[in-house]
């Protein structure tokens, strides 16, 4: 039996999904949504400003927003792992799941590039370069893709 099948068929999964309590699956799912709101919300603000679509906040002042990005990501990594365990065998064979993970990785990586180019340097110009703006726009697109594929997963769940 594959490790993923044994995770999905484990006693933990049976308890987690079978429980009537709202403190198991529903709460973990709600926390996953909270994490998403923090992670994508903060990313949204950063990228919009870099794209010159959200006023003229001095770019360096956006640095603390990355703390929220990492907190949101940490919440979703933890809750995501729990959710994955309970569906491990189904998800590992689900292309939409990998599209979601890939989109998240791409969005985060592009967000870090934006940070390094436009936000971290003390004397970076207040209007980001065209290439950096492209990265910001692409990062937003990948967040949208992550959200859509996350929703689709709920429908393709066997």
């Amino acid at each position, binding site marked *: 039996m594959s490790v993923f099948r044994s995770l999905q068929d484990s006693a933990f999964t049976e308890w987690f999904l079978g429980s009537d309590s*709202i403190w198991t*699956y*529903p709460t973990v*799912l*709600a926390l996953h*949504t*909270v994490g*998403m*709101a*923090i992670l*994508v*919300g*903060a*990313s*949204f*603000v950063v990228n*919009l400003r870099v794209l010159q*679509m*959200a*006023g*003229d*906040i*001095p770019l360096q*002042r956006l640095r*603390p*927003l990355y703390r929220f990005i990492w907190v949101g990501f940490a919440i979703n990594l933890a809750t995501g792992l729990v959710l994955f365990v309970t569906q491990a065998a189904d998800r590992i064979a689900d292309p939409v799941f990998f599209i979601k993970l890939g989109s998240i990785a791409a969005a985060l990586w592009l967000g870090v590039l934006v940070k390094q180019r436009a936000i971290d340097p003390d004397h970076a110009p207040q209007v980001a370069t065209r290439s950096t703006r492209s990265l910001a726009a692409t990062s937003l697109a990948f*967040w*949208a893709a992550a*959200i*859509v594929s*996350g*929703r*689709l997963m709920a*429908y393709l769940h066997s």
Partner: protein
Amino acid sequence: MWVESTRISKALFAMTWLWPACESLHFMGLCMLIGGAGLLDLRLLGLFRGLHIRHVKALMPWAIGGFAINAMTGGLFLLMQPHLYLSSAVWWWKFTFIAIAGLNAAFFETRLAIPALTMDPDGDTPVALKIVGGVSLFSWFAVLYCGRMLPYLGTGN
């Protein structure tokens, strides 16, 4: 419910892709709303010291846009499957927290916007602004929580 027997309700619900599409848009809208309003609320709470409020207000059109997307998609959910919501206590709680957040925002705009824009950005924020920011941030996350818990606490599916 009588709404569900109307032609428009049936026609909308018959489009199988519409419900998932509305859900995706609803999630994107909430990220826009919590991102934009969240930054303002955190600033009112005293974080991001040194940042002038006028900079943060530049996010407001996006937060309102996110709210508008969610009001529209929420309206479509209601129109398609009202029974999932109108008989659910959790949904009424969600609506209540939306009202609290909205009234709180209106109070801020009409009474506290001038003091916020004219205060010294390098100082700590006054208590009134902290309360407004705290109520707003709590309310929007309560809306999110109620919405996500609907299938499990409410009669929805």
